[in-house]
Structures are given as structure tokens and as C-alpha cells.
């Protein structure tokens, strides 16, 4: 009886040993790399995989995941990245172009320099496929946040209407008010500063 039990046990162990190893789940191979922007600026991307977290903050350093799930961080050449991603990178839309307009103090009228800037906006529109415009109003720091949010949006809306009057399609335009959050000239709170009372036009 004991022999029989032992034989069963041996058979069970042998069975275990002979069972094929459970195949590892195969995943598609992956790669991520940070690349320099047009001005040479290099940013950072945090990559999280099953092996933990890694910050990529140098150009052409890639984090790879292989098909067996293992990971590695390797230097790659600019040429190899260009070869793999040429079609992809060339499909990136053009960077938005920004123009800033200032108003004559206490008036709805643009400064002469800003009128010339407006001509450049139309030039930029002609260069882009399916262009759209974001008009962003800004204020100085006089007044509270809610007041300046409203005022900045009113400024943006006024410029948007001006552009519509000049022939820009209304449906291709959006306006936004940033209030006093994005000062061109940093000041303390409650400081009148004409250079902060401006409207940006982002053509994209």
C-alpha cells in the first residue's frame, strides 16, 4: 500500500517536472525616447513599467520594453530615431504662432505697432492648413481674480469680433481670458502696468 502511494507520488513529481514551462505572456516591443525640439530644448518623460519608474531627460536615450517583458534603457542614434519616426514626426502640425496686441490706454483702439502685427496674423493664416485662432486676453494686477477673469475675456472677445469683422470665420475662433495669471511684466498685486494689458493671438 505504501509502495503504491510512493509510486503515485513519484509519478506526480515526474509529471510536474515534465510539464512544459508555462509560456511567458508575449507583449509587443515598445520604445520611447525624448527628442530635442526645434530650438534644441530637451524635456523629460517619466516612463513607468513593471520594472519601476525611470525619468528620460536626455535626447536620444530610449526606454525599451522587449517582447519578453524585460526592459532596458539605451542610447540610440539620432539617425535611427529619424529612420523609425520620419513619417510620424513629419505629420506633426506646425507649432502655434503667437502675436501680441496692445491697446492705446483707455481706448478700444490698437497701437500703431499692433495694427502692423495684425497684418502678420493674416499672413500666418494663409500659410497654414485649416487654421484656427485662439484669442487670449490678459490684464494687469489691478482688481481681484474674478474681475480680471471677466475683463480679460472681454478683451479677447473684442479682438475676436475685430478679426471676424476683418473676414475671419467665427467658427474657427475661440477666445479665452487668463485674467492676471500670466503677467508679461511681473508686478506686485494691484499695480497698473500697460504692458500686461494685452491680447495674444495664437494661430495654429
Amino acid at each position, binding site marked *: 500500500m505504501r509502495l503504491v502511494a510512493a509510486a503515485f507520488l513519484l509519478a506526480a513529481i515526474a509529471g510536474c517536472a515534465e510539464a512544459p514551462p508555462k509560456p511567458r505572456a508575449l507583449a509587443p516591443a515598445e520604445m*520611447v525616447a525624448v527628442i530635442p525640439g526645434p530650438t534644441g530644448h530637451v524635456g523629460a518623460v517619466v516612463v513607468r*513599467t513593471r520594472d519601476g519608474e525611470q525619468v528620460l531627460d536626455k535626447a536620444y536615450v530610449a526606454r525599451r520594453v522587449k517582447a519578453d517583458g524585460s526592459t532596458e534603457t539605451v542610447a540610440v542614434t539620432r539617425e535611427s530615431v529619424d529612420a*523609425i519616426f520620419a513619417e510620424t514626426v513629419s*505629420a506633426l*502640425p506646425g507649432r502655434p504662432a503667437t502675436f501680441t496686441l496692445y491697446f492705446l490706454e483707455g481706448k478700444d483702439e490698437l497701437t500703431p505697432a499692433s495694427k502692423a502685427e495684425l497684418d502678420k496674423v493674416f499672413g500666418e493664416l494663409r500659410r497654414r492648413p485649416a487654421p484656427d485662432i485662439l484669442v487670449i486676453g490678459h490684464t494687469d494686477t489691478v482688481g481681484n481674480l474674478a474681475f480680471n477673469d471677466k475683463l480679460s475675456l472681454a478683451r479677447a472677445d473684442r479682438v475676436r469680433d475685430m478679426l471676424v469683422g476683418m473676414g475671419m470665420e467665427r467658427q474657427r475662433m475661440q477666445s479665452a481670458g487668463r485674467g492676471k495669471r500670466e503677467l508679461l511684466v511681473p508686478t506686485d498685486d494691484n499695480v497698473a502696468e500697460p504692458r500686461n494689458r494685452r491680447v495674444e493671438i495664437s494661430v495654429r
Partner: protein
Amino acid sequence: MRKSLFAVAAFFAALPAFASTDVGVVKVSQGPVQIEREGRSVPATVGMAVRASDTLRTGANGSAGVTFADNSLVSVGPNTVFSIDKYRFDSTTHAGEFEGSLKKGKLAAVSGKMVKQTPESMKIRTPSSVMAVRGTEFVVSVEDAPAP
């Protein structure tokens, strides 16, 4: 119900210019490119609006580029499937979140105002990784799944 209606109203109040659910515009479309939305698939043409939860699918020789509301730029290369899982951007405060997943193929991206305001508010997922973006330009590829 009232609460959710209020939340929706507050969302639109925060985005006064965004009258619809559009989150971006197709600026580049070459070769076979489809946008899948609510179970339908339409060819992506230049000027077409993109919405949160859309999927971009390209064939061989297909590529496309989208400019999002916060000025982030995303392009996809040939044989790619990329889904926009979440997109929210407040044009006043610049707060928001952008989550996308690259199921296969190639992607290039340039982060925008959202990431400048809040690093890592843009995330790209792949089958095995999550990329949290601190800025600015990067590329990602996912090869076709190997045969088991």
C-alpha cells in the same frame, strides 16, 4: 442628476469658447486615416474636429497630426491605433488632463500649455508602459504583437 447637470454647466462656464465637445483639430492627414467615434469610422480630413474618446487609425502609408485645445500636438505614423481616453482643459486656469493610449504603431507628441501648468497632466499609455509627460517633445513606438 441635478448635481451632474451643475457639474456640466460649471465645465462649460470654465470653457466659454468651447461650445461643443471638440478638443482638437486634424491639421495633417495623409494616406488612409480613419477616426472611430461611437462605433462608426469616418475618413479623417484636414480641418475635422477631434473629440475625447475618438480613436485614430491609420493604414500602411497613413499619417495624421492633431492640434489640441491647449496647443499640444500629437501625430501618428503608419499602421497605428491611438485612442484619446480623456481630454479636459480649462483655458482660463490651464488646468486639465490628457490621457491617450497607443495600442500599436508610432506616435510623436509635443506637450502644450496643460503640461507647462501641471507637469505629468499628459499621459500616454502603451500595452506595457505609462509615459507621464513633463515636456516637451517625444516619440513612442509599439510593434505589432508577436505571435504567441
